[in-house]
């Protein structure tokens, strides 16, 4: 499912989908955008917009409804100490708790990355670039 969502190497024209005026989409707000059959979750975190593929590959729960918090990591970088990181930027699937970094779409603990989408503000409109 996710592989089909990764057309990075395919050249095609960009499509812009206006979502709503930026004034209506403040920090802390989130929307679900459905483009055809594809659901996309869009978040405003401290004025930055993030858009990710909106269905969890596990059992298709709606990621737009997930909570944003931090998570724990333990790696060579942390000298194998457990640390709390990415506070406010970890999207937790409301279905069963799979976690995704909103910046990259990468799932914590899985070899899996959700497609992410560029979001721009043009003429006061929050706009998805597909």
């Amino acid at each position, binding site marked *: 499912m996710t592989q089909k969502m990764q057309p990075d190497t395919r050249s095609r024209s960009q499509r812009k989908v206006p979502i709503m005026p930026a004034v209506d989409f403040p920090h802390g707000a989130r929307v679900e955008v459905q483009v055809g059959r594809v659901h996309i979750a869009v978040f405003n975190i401290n004025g930055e917009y993030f858009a990710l593929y909106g269905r969890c590959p596990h059992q298709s729960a709606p990621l737009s409804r997930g909570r944003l918090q931090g998570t724990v990591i333990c790696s060579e970088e942390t000298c194998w100490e457990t640390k709390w990181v990415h506070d406010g930027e970890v999207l937790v699937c409301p279905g069963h*708790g799979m976690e995704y970094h909103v910046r990259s779409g990468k799932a914590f603990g899985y070899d899996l990355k959700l497609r992410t989408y560029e979001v721009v503000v043009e003429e006061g409109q929050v706009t998805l670039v597909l």
Partner: protein
Amino acid sequence: MESDGPLVKVRKVEASYNPVQDEDLDQFGKELSELTIVDVDVHVDDTLMFMLDYMEGHFRKRLETVLQADFKGEPGNSLRNMIAHIAWLGSSYDKPPRAKLAAKEDLLARMEKGIIDYSILFPSELLPIGYLPEPEWAASLAKAYNQYMVDAYQNTKGVKIAIVVAPQHPASAAEEIDRHASHPDVVSVCLPDVGVNPPIGDEKYEPIYAAAARHSLPISFHGIEALIHDNYPLRVAHFHTLMQVNSMGFPFTSMLQIMSVVCAGIPVRFPNLKFAVLEAGLTWMPFIMYRLDAAYLRYRTELPALEKKPSEYIRDWYIGTHELEALPRRGDLVKLIELYQGQDTTMWASDWPHLERDLIAGFMRYEMDETLRRKILGENALEFFGLTPPK
């Protein structure tokens, strides 16, 4: 919106602990509404407070004492939390969605979607009942639970009840079966299989099987997650994380109990008795069936009551899909079911609304022919619980 592109819909949403309690059904609404759907593992709010009015004598006073305590769990005063999650409180940083307790209205709202034809209610609060060391107390709680559930949920369209019995008090368990078996909304007897010692095939439990067989009431074994109990493989002494306990606890307990029942020859003594295993997933079924068959070659004389190989008894057991393992390929579930010969015995179960509940998409993602899909989603459960086909 561009006119030549696909339709775009934008919807403001809120973060939620539990947004997908039953919205997941809508995704397949049209496809599923044509089929008979039986959800064979559904839970409603049955916390201890509901049982108070049904308790008698000094046990009523005792339950009042329990209800005054604050165990800092969710919900408070929960038997499950007293002996389950407290050991690992907070270990997952609250990431898995909270187990919302479903009130009767929540259940009715889910049923009113018109997708699920039958919901079979299994206990939540009393699943660890087999662990309680005092047989009289356990039996008293089971009796109160059963009467409460019958009073609260009888004559509710599409809702059926599995009564629970306290295995450590077989005489009382048999009485409970005798009391409720003829009720049209009671469709199974739930034998909680966790913490039960000795294992559930022991001679001690014969009155329970005899009563269920007498009334042709099928028996369902339903597991529960972590309990603080040092009796491996029934429990947890050798693990230090909840994930390990949760992953191994359910299937290990189920394998132990199936082995115990089959090796004790109970299916031979009570040939009309039907069994199901719930909440343990599916993947271990081939393992226990054929591992026992291999050993049976050498040790058959230890089990002189058996008239055929262990796997030929176990393949008659019904099994709930929850917690459905995430198999890597879409054709894998069919292969697995073929291995344990479960085409006529596998039943879809969600465990709604518990935190580990399966969304129906988790089942629908697997490829299979429509005949098998119909059987798993409903027809096998109609057969097991003796339900009237709704459509």
